[in-house]
């Protein structure tokens, strides 16, 4: 069900991209001009990322199998050849979620820092398609507030290896006309989907600073799974 919905989203993105192809003949010329002259093209992205988490270890922290995130990234083009280009950057995904489980208040916080490595194929004024690999690290922090626990809270935090692999399409929403030195050249709407990997974490939670107290084992938290991301981006 989830996979099917994601495919629909991606197909919609592709379709709309092709229909918008005739919209703005001049954008590609400007962008090509900047690349052809060796000018560095940077991009800033702000988006919404949704991850699908099916592992039972996630159940105490959410009433569904879904983890919404804020996604921010910056990239810059490092190489190009004809319609092809390659960009790299840094990205940060942030999520916090919680639930009431067996009467306890729970919270999960995720910070994911990755290095996006992105290959792009431009289709003139229709935008461009891209494939993105993003290795990085993730900081998972969980807390369960239970009255039976000294200090009321069981916690665990840990840095873990993480990586994303996704593909998507960017559609130009607005393009500055004419060449020149203006800072902002394009605004994009883009969508991508793929698979995010995070090393599993054993949820052997412990009370903070309590040497003579046992914790609880909630199983394994596995945040790996499919995801999609909807973003707006600005090219420099």
């Amino acid at each position, binding site marked *: *069900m*989830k996979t099917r*919905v*994601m495919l*629909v*989203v991606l197909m*919609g*993105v592709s*379709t*709309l991209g092709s*229909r*918008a192809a005739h919209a703005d003949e001049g954008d590609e010329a400007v962008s090509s001009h900047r690349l052809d002259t060796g000018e560095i093209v940077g991009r800033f992205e702000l988006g*919404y990322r*949704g991850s*699908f988490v*099916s592992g*039972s270890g*996630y*159940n*105490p922290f*959410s*009433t*569904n*199998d*879904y983890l*919404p995130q804020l996604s921010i990234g910056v990239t810059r083009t490092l190489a190009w050849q004809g319609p092809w280009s390659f960009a790299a950057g840094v990205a940060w995904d942030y999520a916090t979620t919680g*639930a*009431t*489980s*067996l*009467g*306890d208040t729970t919270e999960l916080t995720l910070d994911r820092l990755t290095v996006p490595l992105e290959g792009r194929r431009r289709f003139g004024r229709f935008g461009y398609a891209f494939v993105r690999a993003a290795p990085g690290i993730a900081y998972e922090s969980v807390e*369960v507030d*239970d*009255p*039976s*626990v*000294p200090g009321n809270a*069981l916690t665990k935090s840990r840095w873990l290896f993480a990586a994303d692999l996704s593909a998507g399409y960017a*559609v130009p*929403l607005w393009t500055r006309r004419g060449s020149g030195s203006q800072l902002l050249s394009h605004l994009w*709407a883009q*969508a991508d989907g793929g698979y995010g990997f995070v090393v599993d974490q054993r949820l052997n*939670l412990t*009370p903070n600073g*309590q040497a*003579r*107290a*046992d*914790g*609880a*084992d*909630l*199983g394994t938290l596995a945040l790996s799974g499919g995801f*999609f991301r*909807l973003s707006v981006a600005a090219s420099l």
Partner: protein
Amino acid sequence: MNRTAFVLFSLCAACAVSSCGSRPAYWNQQAPAVSTYGLQEGVAVLDADNNRLVFLSALPAQQLSAQQLPLAHNPVTTSVSPDGQSLFILASGDWPIQTAADQLPSLTWVAPPPSSSTTVPATMTATQFWMSNPLQNLVVDPGEHWAVAYAGAQTDFVQNVSELVLFDLTQAPNPSSPTAPLDKTRSPNPVSRTLQAFGGIPQQLTFTVGLDLGGGLVRHLLVMETNIDVTMVDMDDAFPVPPATAPAEVTVRLTNGSDGTMVTPAGLAVYPGSASGPARLAIRASNDTNIFTLVLGPSTPTINLTDVGGVPSDIAFVMTDAPTDGGLRVAALVPSSSSAVLVEPDTSLTTTVALDAPYTSLSLVTQALGTPAPTVDVALLWGAPSGATDGVELWTLGSSVGTPYRSVQGVDVSQSIQAVDDVPGNAQLKVLEVAGGSEFVVLNLVTQNAAPLETSQSASLMIAPDGGRMWVFTPEGTNLASIDFKDLNPIRLTTDLPINAVYDVARVDSTAADPHRSLIAIHQVGTLGATVFDALDPNPVTSRRADALLLEGP
């Protein structure tokens, strides 16, 4: 489709997928309400809402391990086995059955593995006996050979109140599962049996020890007291292999001796028989002043009625130094006349002994006293209302018959006693629970020394199964004390969370030569917590907390 439509479509899709999938309903409930039971080697936590049993074992360094077992649906009665090693859970299942996935009523026996198992901590195993109808009451044979389930007062839509379901705990269930075929080479287990009905509703069932019926015939009986009669079932032949059938039960209808009015049994005493006399039953009634004595033999029992002058509150077979019937008598307490009555079972001759107070209960303490003449019993009398001169009295049966007034010795305990507890492995000690729960008395039967232990609040008591100490705690409070029976010196402890129950259990590394025990104080807050103390050396510094014991998923 234009760009605006693209954006709207994407947002709608995102909203749709974000609502996909949901977690198991288990997590959405509040903290489960559980009941706990102390066994010799751990604490069983019944989480009926989630059909699971969590068994807590005590590890070294005051740590706990938890083992989860599936639990039969809708448990109605739970009973710790007489030896404290195992647990019996009678469940009504998913009754009435509506789908193929619904569970039948059952009896589950949760027990440690055979002694040959080397797993540490021991992995508890569950044996399930399937029933065709739900029943509400369970009685387990003290020898753990049999168990019986019965209906009692009606609770189901239609219920056969005369139906008993008998379990042979020494044999495997037959059939082994609800869908398995019946093994026709052996008896079904359990066996459902409808007793001859005279309209009585079962009130109490009792398994007897082996009874000498004469001629070398020893039988074990199940005695069922209804509100109008008494029925005896021969357990040794209760599990015939078809097509053989079990012998018919024997029902004795009880009427008073004057106008034939039906009387209601309220308790019985059993004499197993010996070379000098046959086995007997004595029955008292809640609405009649007669004692009914039955002489058991290979054929139909004979019955005698003896009027003791008032409704008796407790009875027991006792040995006296009387010359007739080998000294055997039925001792009956009659609170209405503040007396005890000794009944000669064959002749119905009685001897009345005046008491200082209207005692309602008696316990035989002969062995505890190490009486020089072991054929003569000593009884501890208790249960008098507050205001009595003596809360307990010792009644020496050797001097009772014929000289009744010299037979009772008062012990210096003046409070009203609501319960008398045995100390395992230490027969000369009794713990007397004073009404109100603000005082306990440790009574040494040999020295007749009564040591009162007072508490500032109403408290509950738990005696360690090894007989070494007792624990006193304030229910829903944080006060806890350990009192060693050697010196009766209280060691005051406290916990951070309110205590609901305490259990003194053997640690997994405990041996006869090197015993270790833990005290587990249960806190029913959040998802269940516990504080664990070293029971043999209780010290707050070495105690340890175990938290969120039920937080793990089912």
